[in-house]
Structure formats: structure tokens, C-alpha cells
């Protein structure tokens, strides 16, 4: 960064006292958000690391357990999330152009899509409950290793797969729930007309967050659902 600009603006009410101007304020928030996302990568990184190691060790059992996941629901959810990322972008665009009506519509759509994702995820989890695929004393996984019908799946390793499945999708869902909270807040303020072409940093930063959560899913889907599907 070059030297901070000294030119001081006073008019914009969104300008906090300790910043010299809107530009500096916006850059600070955006850097802050990117750094936060870096911490998020490390957070999920721990689980991805565990996943990779166990998948490498127990590949056949992981493949079998993965096959019991509902690929249709998973794929639909992937589509839902990608669409929601699009609506977020549209909402930010609408704010940049000063179109309040559109902003509200797109934010509402994002919320609906986010909730749809959580709903579908809920359905998937419920069926896992019914099938006794929840790790713990009642866990029971029947089936054989893909390509080897006479070789039963190792119960323990299948449990490990589902431990990771629930930890990872659970953490992801938690992030979605937080996202839904954030977007409800944004929706309310967009409705009130708070975000203008000059000031819409919260929208932009929440958008970054949403895209991040989206990307995590884009990795989770193939890693969890698509192991060795061809057999």
C-alpha cells in the first residue's frame, strides 16, 4: 500500500471515525474478510487432511460407504448451492447499480436456496439415522467392498467414513446456518435501503463468505459422494 490518503471525507454517514475515507474503510473490511476466509480454509483443512489419510488407508471400505449416500440428493444440493452463489452475485450487482428492489429479490432467493440446501441435507441425515449409519454403539453397515461381492465391508472403517461424513457436512451445515442468519440480516437492511452504490461492503463481504461455504461443498461432494462410483 502507498501512504494512506489524507483526504478526509465527512459526508458519508457509514464512514467510521477512525478511517480517513470510504476507500480506506472498504479496503480494510475486504482484507479482513479475506483473512477470515484464510482461517476458514485452515479450519476445514484439518478435516480434509484427516479424510485424505483415512481414505488412502481404507479405500475399499470408504468406497462402499460412499455408495450408500444418495447421489441424486447430493447432486441437487450442489446445483442449489451454485445457483445461490449466482443470486448473491446478482444481489451485489444490484446494490452497485442502486437497484433496491432487485437487491431484495436476489437476497430473498439466496435465503430460499440456502434453506432448501439445509432441508435436503436434513432429509439425507434422517435417512442415515434410519439406516443405523450414525457412528456409535448402534452403528451397522451391511454390504460388500465394491468389485468384491464376497468381501464384507469392515464395520470400523465404515464408521470412520461416517464419522468424517458427519463432522464435515455438519460443520459445513453450521456455516450455512450462520450464512442464513447473515443473509436475513442483510435482507432486512437491503429492504430498508441501507446499501447504496457508495456503500455496500457488508453485502460484498457476506457474498465472499457465502461463496466460500459454497466452494467447501464443491469439494465435499466429490470427496464424499463420488468415490469409485463406476464399479
Amino acid at each position, binding site marked *: *500500500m502507498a*501512504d*494512506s490518503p*489524507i483526504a478526509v471525507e465527512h459526508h458519508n454517514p457509514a464512514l*467510521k*471515525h*477512525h478511517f480517513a475515507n470510504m476507500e*480506506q474503510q472498504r*479496503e*480494510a473490511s475486504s*482484507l*479482513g474478510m479475506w*483473512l*477470515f476466509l*484464510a*482461517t*476458514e480454509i*485452515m*479450519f*476445514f*483443512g*484439518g*478435516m480434509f*487432511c*484427516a479424510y485424505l*489419510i*483415512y481414505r488412502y*488407508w*481404507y479405500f475399499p471400505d470408504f468406497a462402499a460407504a460412499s455408495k450408500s449416500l444418495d447421489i441424486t440428493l447430493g447432486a441437487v444440493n450442489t446445483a442449489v448451492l451454485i445457483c445461490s452463489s449466482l443470486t448473491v452475485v446478482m444481489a451485489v450487482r444490484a446494490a452497485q447499480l442502486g437497484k433496491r428492489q432487485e437487491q431484495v429479490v436476489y437476497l430473498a432467493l439466496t435465503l430460499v436456496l440456502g434453506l432448501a440446501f439445509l432441508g435436503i441435507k436434513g432429509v439425507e441425515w434422517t435417512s442415515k439415522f434410519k439406516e443405523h449409519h450414525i*457412528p*456409535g*454403539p448402534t452403528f451397522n453397515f451391511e454390504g460388500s467392498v465394491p468389485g468384491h461381492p464376497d468381501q464384507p465391508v*469392515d464395520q*470400523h*472403517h465404515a*464408521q*470412520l467414513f461416517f*464419522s*468424517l461424513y*458427519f*463432522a464435515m457436512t455438519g*460443520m459445513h451445515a453450521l456455516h450455512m446456518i450462520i450464512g442464513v442468519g447473515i443473509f436475513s440480516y442483510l435482507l432486512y437492511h437491503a429492504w430498508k435501503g441501507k446499501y447504496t452504490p457508495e456503500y455496500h461492503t457488508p453485502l460484498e463481504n457476506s457474498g465472499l463468505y457465502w461463496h466460500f461455504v459454497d466452494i467447501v461443498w464443491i469439494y465435499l461432494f466429490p470427496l464424499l459422494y463420488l468415490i469409485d462410483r463406476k464399479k
Partner: protein
Amino acid sequence: MATAALTAERENYLNQEYGIKSWLLTVDHKRIALLYLLSITFFFFIGGFFALLIRLELLTPAGDLVQADTYNKLFTMHGQVMVFFFLIPSIPAVLGNFLVPLMIGAKDLAFPRINLLSWYLYIIAGVLMLHCMLTGGVDTGWTFYTPFSTAFSNTKVIEAGLAIFISGFSSILTGLNFVVTIHRMRAPGMTWNRLPLFIWAHYATSIIQLLGTPVIAVTLVLVVLERALHLGIFDPTRGGDPLLFQHLFWFYSHPAVYIMILPAMGVVTEIVPCFARKRIFGYQFVAMSSIGIAVLGFLVWAHHMFVAGISLYAALIFSALSYLVAVPSAIKVFNWTATMYKGSITFSTPMLYAFGFVGLFTMGGLTGLFLAALGIDVHVTDTYFVIAHFHYIMVGGAVMGYLGGMHFWWPKISGRMYPESLGRLAALIVFLGFNLTFFPQFILGYLGMPRRYWQYPPEFQVLNVLSTAGSTILAVGYLLPMVYFLWSMRYGKVAPDNPWGASGLEWMTPSPPPTFNFDAPPVVDWEAYDYEHIPAPQEARSGG
């Protein structure tokens, strides 16, 4: 009192508003620093209390004060409180919070409300930890090793884990605030090469906080999930690998050592040039060694696992990398010494702590090299040698740096001078008490006394008695500053703006600073540590 009545006090961050609400809802980084100061001091005494109980138990070879179960809880909670609730927040959250905006000429941190949030997270975590301690405590060791923590311990692992998880977020937010502030809030003319090295040290620290802390956060979440919901990620009976836990834990916890020591190095780098009246030797080297430590610090974690069953080749590589990380630390030590060389040195309190830091940190660092050597580590791993080693770094290094910094900036923080001769006495007591406590532990460890046991063979008693005696002296040394700091707030001499003749923007604003730090926005057109052009104050020379 008399002096305070005479000089009509000008408006500053302390007297601008009164009342508990003006503190609990403040977004002023200086007030938040004081909130942190109070809270971490509280936890320091809790951790210290546990330490004294440990030392008391070890006065005799038999288990007379407590039995094994209680002893396990004592060292666990001592470690957890000291690491997560005192030392990690100490310098960054108190001195860093207070000084980062002042030193770069900003009105506040970039995100003042997030700063307050981070303090509240710390408090929530602290209350949870206290609750955990009062209702039974934990006994896993501060390391939470699985499968003991997930499947066997019948103490409050979940609560302690969550408390540390939450305190981690407080630490992340502090780091995030610093990085953004340092990037975006510098005063005109405050280029990267003019930044005080304290800022560079905090920048490096923040990077570790940002990239390391989330990993321990997720690790603790997995431990909690395994205990509470029977997930089995680290469970060996289901093919899970406890070593994976250790990798994840140390991926954070080794760099965490640098979260503790880097800020102290930053403090020392401010103190040494000031009391040697010389420009810092090798500015760029000191700055870059901070970054080097932060980066290399992420690559050495498995040196904590040499005997845990990692492969020989992994061990060789991690051993070599651990040697490498000593290089930037050594660069710093050489630079401080070179700065003092032919300087005109004043032995005032902060400088005494800085001397203490350099010596003890060097001891800690060199014994760290012993531990990085595979052959020696196998002999002394999990013995008191390790305990002595990391206390030389954390207590001899980091706490000394913290105390030195508290003395150095106390006039700025409080607007009062502490009693100088008492200060020097306390510094001396701390130094002697420290060495008496921990030096014998090197020998004990080398002779084979294992850590984490409540009793020991009688032939170790003499050295243990010395250590316990030292810890009581150390306790006096720690209590003294607390007493005279409090005393000075009322009765101390009123501090001038720049009592030490120090360089840096924080000394160019009144003591204590006004709420928005500077009366006029500063513009910087000089280099850092410009001591050739700053007169030394008479006051600091004669010593009060």
C-alpha cells in the same frame, strides 16, 4: 495525589468517561487493552496458584499433599490456563492492543468492535474454564492426547476443550485486527521499513494466530464430537489414528510457542536501542527474522513426536528443520547484542528485563537444539529437561519480555512513573527466582526424573527442594510489580510524554494518550530508532 491535584489533568482516554459501562462497552483499543490486562492478570495468578501447588507437592518424594489424580489435574489446568488464558493473549492483547495503533499513527485498530468482541469471547472462554475447574477439572495434560482424552478420562474434557476453542477465536480476531490495521491504517510516511520492529513482530505473530489457531480449533471440535457423539476419528479401535491427533495438535501448538515468544522479542527490540542509545543493528534482518520464524515455525511440529512412532525419515527431516528455525532466532540475539555493543547503556528496569530475556531465551533456545537432536531427545523426552526447556522460553523469555514491556510503557499507559529502584529490585528477584526454580530441573531431567508424576525417588529431593524454594522467590518477584503498579496509579510521579527519550510515535503524544491517540494526525518523515537525534533524558540516567 499532590501532583495530580496541582496539574489540571488534560482530557485523556482514562478520564474522558467514567463508570463501569464506559469500560464494558468501550471500543477504544487502549481501554480494551486494560480490560485484557485485568483479565489475564487474574488468570496468571490462577495458573501460578496451580504451579505453587505442584511445586509444594514436589517438595518431598512421597505423595503427601495430593494424590495422583489431583496432581494430574493440577498440572493440566496449570498448563492450560498459563498457555491459553495468560501467555497467548498476554503481550498481543495487552501491549499490542494498546500500542499497535499508536505506533503506526492510527486512531484505532481497523475493527474496534471486533476488538471488543474478542475480549468478550475471551471472558466467555475464561468463565467456562473457571466453571470447569471449580466443578472437577480436567486431567488430560494440556495436550489433550487421544485416546485418553476421548475414551478414558472421566474428567471435564468437553468443557475445557470448548473453553480453549472459544479462546482461540478471541486470539484469531486479535490477529486479524492487527494484520488489517498494519496494512491499511498506517500514518502518511510510515512505510514498511520505518515500522517499529514491535510491529513487525506482531505482524508475524498475527499470521501464526490466523493460520494456526483454526487447526487446533477443529482438532478440539473433533475430540469433543468423539467424546460426546461417538464419532471415531481418533479412535484406534475403529482404525482411527491417535498420531493424527498429535500431528494436528502440534501443527498449532508448536507455532503457538512463537505466538508467545515473538511479541516478547518485539518488546525487547524496542527496549534495547532505547537504553543503549543506539539505532537497532540490522533493522531488516530483525524484521525478516520475525517473518522467517513465523514461516519456519509451521514446519517443525513433529519434533514433539520423535518417540511417538513416526517414521525414522520423518524424524530426521523434522529434526533438521528444527535446527533451521533456530537460525532466525539466533539472528535476533546477535542483533540485540550488536546493538548494545559500544552503546551507552542504562540499567533501568525495562533494560534489566531485556537482559534477562536475552540470556534466558538463549538458554531456552540452545536446550531446544538438544531436544531437536534425535539421540538426545530419546533420552530426555518427557522428563523435567523438557519442562525446564520450555519454561526458559515461556517464563524466562516471554514473561520477562512482557514484564519489561509493562515497565517500559507503563508511564504511557497510566500516566504515572513506577518506583524505579523497587522496579530494579523486582527484576532482580524475578531473575534469581526463575533460575533457582528451573535450572535444577535441567539436571533433574537429565538424571531421568519424568514429568507429570506426583512422587519421585528420594535421591532427587535436593534439586526439587531448590526448585520449590526458587518458585516462592519467583512468586514474590511477580507480586511486587503488581503492588507498585497499583500504588503508582495514585502516588507515582506524573509521567512526562517521553520519559525514556525513546523513539516512536507513541512517545510523541501525551501520557496517557487522548482517546483518538493524537491531537493532530501524525506524518512521519524520519527513520525508525533514530537515536542519534534524540537526547537521553536526565531522569532515566540518574534513576529514581
